Structure formats: structure tokens, C-alpha cells
């Protein structure tokens, strides 16, 4: 049977559709534009998609409070276009911001290079409205940044992959748009050099908004978004650190800078391929890269890495036949685990996804995750099997 698409025009209808599905015992997968549907586990038992794409207005911008409430179906690009009128933005920059909806970004706790300065989605969210599996609507948090009343369900929804509730709208803390930006592009000799340099930049009295690494080409992109004078001064200071570490660097701005960042994103996020997220301690990044280099050479697969070098979060892309991709997932997972970290499959060709557990071992907390899931969705109709720990 083909999977049906439900497209409610407003939050009330969305909730009513959930209630109806619960009555009918139908399973639903909430989605936005569907950009991340290939993320997370397979969708073996799904009757319908519930798209929140039409929940795209209003975007309530409280500029004086540096806060906005945005509906789940608005794309990040739409939201930021509105916020830009007041020289503010929602400082989340995941790949594919043009199509990614707020609901999808929250559900996957997605973020990008500027996480270095602004944090991930879960660090910026301050309130949420959800539709529960039985069709009731509930809120948590609010529209003030400082608020400790009640449980923080907004954070619980971040990264829940549509397994607990349908996100209707979310409220975020915003950031002012910086007047100026410069990026230092630094090339060094090896993976260890790139990672060390990232840690040195992070320890220097600078305020970079991103410290991104690229592999196998050992390159760093270090971005400064602040006042014009400070961006110039800090990029020069960073350049001096690069040169002292025997690297070579250039500073780019305007179109050259935008282009560098576009190419950076495409290295991993261009269509196709297997993409994993590897997280380790920042000091383990060099080791992971070195082992990956060896693994790829030994097995003969092509790969690319971009990542938050100073935070220890990397996106690794592998382009290889399914068999080798499956093996690469297992090998990388072992490498990450040995170094105290984890590797999650974010996106994979169907033939690969069917043969791997995208989440890996979730540990002793998985029983509690199950318990939370069973309270929110006792009939297991929301994204069954899609979430971690078999949620």
C-alpha cells in the first residue's frame, strides 16, 4: 500500500488528524519538506506521513526580546529572511537551510558550523508547542529566555525524530546579525596538524563563530563574525597562529567567503553517499582522522569529512559500493567507540540502511528512553522503529 500524505492546513487540523489516526490505529511519520526522511531508521510500518509544511505562518518576531516563535513548517531560510529585517537571525546553519523546516531541524537537533559559537538547536530552543499522539495539544517552556517553570519538554523534543509527538511550533533565542565576516582558510600538512591548529585557535583570545575542518585535504575554515575592525584583527591574529604552526593561510570575504562555505557544505552534503556523524572528544579528532585515512586507503573507498573540530563533532561521507559502506560503518563505529565516542548513520543508500543499525549502542539509558516513548505514544503510532534504541 502506498504511504498516504496528510497535509493539515493548521495546527488544529494536525492535532485532529493525529487523534483520528490514533483511533484508527494508523502509524504516522511527521515530516516537513522531507529533506531528512532518509535520516534515522527505516520506515517499515508506516501508514501515512503527516506533513507540517503548511504550518508556515505566522512567524512571530519579538525583535526587542531577541526571540521568535516560528511554526514547524516554515523553512529556516524563510524564517531568517523575516528576522533579517531587524538584523537578527536564528543562528542555526545546518546543511540545506533553504528546504529544511523548523520542525525537521528540531526533531533532528540539527546544526552546522556556527554551533561553535551559538550552540545546537537544543541550546537555542526556549519553548515548544506539540500535538500529542492522542491529538491533544500541549506547550512547554515559553517565550522568555530565562524560565525554569516545569519540565523542559522543548529540549526533549530536540533529536526525538518524530517518535514522541508532532512539533507544531517552537520558540527560539535569536542572535544579532554580525556587521562583518571574514574567514581564514588554512592548509596544513596532516590530520593531526589540522586538529591541533583548531584546538590552538579555540584556546586563543578570539571569538570565532566556526572552526571547521576538512579532510582528506587537511584544511581548516575559521570564521569571524563581529564588527568590521574586530573581524579584520582577529582573522589576522588567526593567520599568525596558522603560520606559526607551519601552515599556509588566506583570508576571504564577501563572495569568495560565501563560495568557500558553499563548497565546504557540499563536500559532505551533496546528494548521494553514506553520511555518518562521528562524535568524540576534541583531542581524539586527529586520531579518528588518521585511522579513517588508513581505513580508506586499505579498503579503497572515497571519503570526505567536514566538522566542528573544536567540539569533536564530524560529518563523514563515504562513497562506495554497499558492501564496503556497511563495512565502513562498522569500522568507524569501532574507531569511535575505542576513543570513547559514537558514530551514527545520518543518511545512507537504502541498501546500506537496511543492513546497519543507524544509531548503534545507546547504552543503559535506552530502557528509560523506551519508557518515555511508551508514555507519550502508548500505541506506538508515531514513527515506529525510526528512533534510537528501537523507538
Amino acid at each position, binding site marked *: 500500500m502506498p504511504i498516504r500524505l496528510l497535509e493539515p492546513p493548521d495546527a488544529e487540523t494536525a492535532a485532529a488528524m493525529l487523534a483520528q489516526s490514533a483511533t484508527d490505529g494508523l502509524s504516522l511519520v511527521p515530516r516537513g519538506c522531507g529533506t531528512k526522511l532518509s535520516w534515522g531508521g527505516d520506515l517499515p510500518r508506516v501508514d501515512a506521513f503527516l506533513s507540517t509544511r503548511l504550518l508556515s505562518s505566522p512567524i512571530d518576531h519579538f525583535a*526587542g526580546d531577541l*526571540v521568535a516563535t516560528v511554526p514547524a513548517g516554515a523553512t529556516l531560510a524563510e524564517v531568517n529572511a523575516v528576522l533579517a529585517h531587524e538584523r537578527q537571525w536564528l543562528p542555526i546553519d545546518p546543511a540545506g537551510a533553504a528546504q529544511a523546516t523548523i520542525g525537521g531541524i528540531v526533531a533532528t537537533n540539527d546544526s552546522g558550523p556556527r554551533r561553535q559559537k551559538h550552540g545546537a538547536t537544543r541550546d537555542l530552543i526556549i519553548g515548544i508547542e506539540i500535538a500529542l499522539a492522542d491529538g491533544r495539544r500541549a*506547550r512547554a517552556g515559553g517565550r522568555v529566555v530565562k524560565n525554569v*517553570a516545569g519540565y523542559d519538554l522543548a529540549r526533549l523534543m530536540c533529536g526525538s525524530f518524530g517518535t514522541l509527538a508532532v512539533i507544531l511550533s517552537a520558540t527560539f533565542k535569536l542572535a544579532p546579525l554580525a556587521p562583518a565576516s571574514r574567514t581564514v582558510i588554512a592548509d596544513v600538512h596532516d590530520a593531526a596538524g589540522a586538529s591541533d591548529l583548531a584546538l590552538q585557535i579555540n584556546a586563543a583570545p578570539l*571569538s570565532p563563530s566556526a572552526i571547521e575542518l576538512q579532510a582528506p585535504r587537511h584544511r581548516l575554515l575559521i570564521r569571524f563574525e563581529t564588527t568590521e575592525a574586530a573581524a579584520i584583527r582577529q582573522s589576522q591574529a588567526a593567520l599568525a597562529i596558522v603560520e606559526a604552526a607551519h601552515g599556509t593561510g588566506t583570508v576571504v570575504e564577501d563572495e569568495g567567503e560565501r563560495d568557500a562555505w558553499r563548497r565546504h557544505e557540499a563536500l559532505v552534503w551533496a546528494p548521494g553517499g553514506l553520511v555518518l556523524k562521528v*562524535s568524540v572528544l576534541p*583531542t581524539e579528532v586527529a586520531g579518528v582522522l588518521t585511522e579513517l585515512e588508513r581505513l580508506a586507503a586499505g579498503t579503497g573507498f572515497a571519503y570526505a569529512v567536514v566538522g566542528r573540530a573544536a567540539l569533536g563533532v564530524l560529518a563523514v561521507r563515504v562513497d562506495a559500493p554497499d558492501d564496503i559502506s556497511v563495512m565502513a560503518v562498522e569500522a568507524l563505529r569501532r574507531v569511535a567507540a575505542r576513543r570513547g565516542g559514537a558514530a551514527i548513520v545520518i543518511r545512507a543508500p537504502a541498501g546500506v540502511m537496511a543492513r546497519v543499525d543507524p544509531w548503534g549502542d*545507546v547504552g543503559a539509558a535506552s530502557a528509560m528512553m523506551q519508557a518515555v516513548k511508551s508514555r507519550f505514544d502508548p500505541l506506538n503510532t508515531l514513527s515506529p522503529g525510526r528512533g534510537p*534504541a528501537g523507538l
Partner: protein
Amino acid sequence: MNNRFLDRLAAAVSPGALLRDPVELLTYESDALVHLRATPGAAVLPRSAAEVQAVVRLCHEHHVPFVARGHGTGLSGGALPVADGILIVLSRLNRILDIDIPNLRVTVEPGVTNAEITRQVAPLGCYYAPDPSSQSVCSIGGNIAENSGGAHCLKYGFTVHHVLGVEAVLPTGDMIQVGGAVLDPPGLDLLGVMVGSEGTLAVVTKATLRLLRRPEAVLTLLAGFGSIDEAGEAVSAIIGHGIVPAAVEMMDRLTIDAAEAAVHPDFPKTGAVLIVELDGPQDEVHELFAIVERVCHASGASTIEIARDAAARDRIWRGRKAAFAAMGRVSPNYYVQDGVVPRTRLPEVLRRIRDLEARSGLRIGNVFHAGDGNLHPLICYDEAIAGQAEHAEAVASEILQYCIDAGGSITGEHGVGADKSKHMSKMFGPNDLDAMRMVRSAFDPAAICNPGKVFPTPRLCGEVPGPYRQHPIERAGLAERF
């Protein structure tokens, strides 16, 4: 209390760790919200996570409620014992287990005080960012439970932004690890919901926290304004310039006078003072600071003082931090409220508070974290006058209603605890509370973990309203309310 249970409890912890003597239990009858009191059946002071686990396991088996307690500085009765329950005091779990400077991580037991972490890592150029004003005495476990913040949370966020992982004992006695030193662990963000859950979901036995490096430069400014409204305009203009200060604090005339009487910070005798602090790289801070100065002038500041060194900065902060305790100089008693409004609604809410002041006949001082709209109205009264304590509490509750009307919150940092659970249903509807209860019942199906907190329950009879009373740590000069 069942003797077999008590015997098993005594056997589960080190000798001397089980307290039953009513005199010994006196210390534990309340947290810093001293008018809510209860005597626990017993208090235990475990020395290890394993002992905590053994205690919770026994409570689970015998259906005995328990309450975790850090250092008892909470201001909402979060650590109020359950009569005939067990109080698990975590002050002996006070070791710093690991300091990892290259990765800017520290792993601690829950009884370590907030300030101790910074004290340990300061020589290495680092600090732990959340800075509640009780930081020299409150515990990290308590901070995690309350999602505590401080004056600098405008820029640096709250405890939740700085906790990467915890080890915790669930109400069944099972031990779980949630999050860890590495970011983005797979699975639901249980950590996100455990932080700020006020000890109602689990007992934290270990935590891994993020450290920050000390900023290169810190500049602080003290500006005097004719009125709160003018000072508020300056704050709006600063934010309008795209500047996010490390801290923005405001005080009105009544609290300025009180602070002057108490610690002589030599603040201008104006209608309001504004404190703005910027930190970060030297050049950036200086450039932005010049804008802040200009903005203050343009908004009508009558005086501007710039603290260029630590001594001058300390004086300014001393004046600000003294504001609560100093109210004792101008009023025999006072009630401290904690509410939040969207920053842009401050002028309107403060006008309502001024009207209320006139109507109620009680003086109300205002100090607040102006950057994030967190108000701490101080309601002055005299408990010697019959009925005035109750009147003050009613006034304090009415202010919370103003906060809710303006789209704000009933608590910005002190928590709901036992004190404000009755206000929860003003802010949240039945569905909202049910969704929260789903989490609660997943973690604690038997409802033995800090029962009676956070969620609304009928008001206890015989409960007396809560005037401000100086906490022993304040009397000892260890902390000021803030």
C-alpha cells in the same frame, strides 16, 4: 518508620551516615525557603554513588518516598523533606574526579560547590560559567536540578548549556549514564529534561561539565538614570545595536538606597542605575563598549562610571549583590519574588507593580536581571503588624500574575518546588501538565522521588506564607541573594 527498613538502610551506608536524632534532623527540615518545614523520617549522608543507589533501591522496595538534597540553598522548597520519607543529603559526595583542560571538561560529584570548580581550574585560565550568587555554597547537583543561572547567563546561558552528561540513580534504584564528555550521544535528550526537573526524576551522582576559558577583557559600566524607563530604553538600544552584553542589571531607587546603607557602593542617587558588563577579546570589547557608553548618554544617563580594573568592578557588583540583604536596612521584613517578563514588557509590568505598591500600601523595591527580564521584586512589610505577612504574600502572587499576563514565567531561577506549584496551572493548561507528567511517570512510576513538588497539588492546611528570612549562609556573609 518501619524498623526492618531502617535496619537495612543503616546497613547499606557507612557507619554514622544515617541520622535519626530529631536534633540532628533539625538542620534538614527546610531549604533556604525556611517557612516550609517538615521533619524527614531519617536523613542519610552517603559517601559514594553505590551507597546512594543502595538507599534508593531500598526506598523503592519499601515504597518509601525520598528527597535529594544538595546544600539546602534552594529558594522554592525543592529540598523540603517528605515527613516520614528519607532525605538523601549529597554533601559528602564532594570530589572533583577529573579535570581535562585540553577538552575543557570537568567531572565532579554532585556535592561539589559551584565555586569550587572555578577555584580549581582558575590557575589554568578556565572557569565554570553559571554563576548563581549562592555559588560559594550551592552544590552542582542542586544547580542541575534547578537549572541555575547567574548574572552572566544573558550571554553564557544556564546550567543546561554547561552540563554534558550525568550519572544518576533512577527511582527504581537503577543507575544510568545520560550524555557524557562527548557531544551528541545517540538517543533521546533525557539530559535536557533532567536538568531543571528539581530532583523529581532521579538522583544525580556524577556530572561532566563544560569549562570556558577566561575572556581576555572585561569592562563594566555603571550608569545613573532619572527613571527605570530611561534605563530600560538604554537596554533596548544596546540590544538594538546588536550587542549581547555578558550581563545587564538594574536597580531602582529604593534598592539603591538600601545597598548604600548596607555596603556603601557609592552608587549615584538617581531614579535607577544600570550595570552593563561586556567581555571577550580585547579589541572587540573596547569597540562595543564605546557604543554602550554612547547609547547610555543618548538615553539620558546623568552619570557614567567605567570600571577599568577588578577593584572598581568588584565595588559595582558588591552594590548590586547586596541589594537583597540590604533591604533589611529599610524594612523589618521583606518577601523576595522571582518572575520573568519579556524584556520589552518591563516598563509596562513595572508600572503595574508601582500601582500595586500604591494600592497595597507596601513598599516594593526592584532589582532585576534586565537583559533577560528576570524580576526580583522585594515586597517590604512588618510581621509585627497583624496580617501584613499574608498581605505581602498576596502582593507577591499578584506580581506573578502580571508576569504571566505579559507572556512571562512564574520563575526564572528559583524553581517551582513546593512554593510555586500552586501557580503552575496559571501558566500551563491541563494538557501541558499532563505531557510533563508523562515524563515524570516514565522515570518515577511509583511517585516516590521528591513527591509533592513542581506539579500543582491542593494547598496544605496550616501552611503559613513566606516572608524573607535571612538564610544562615547570608548571615555568615557567604552569599547574597541576587
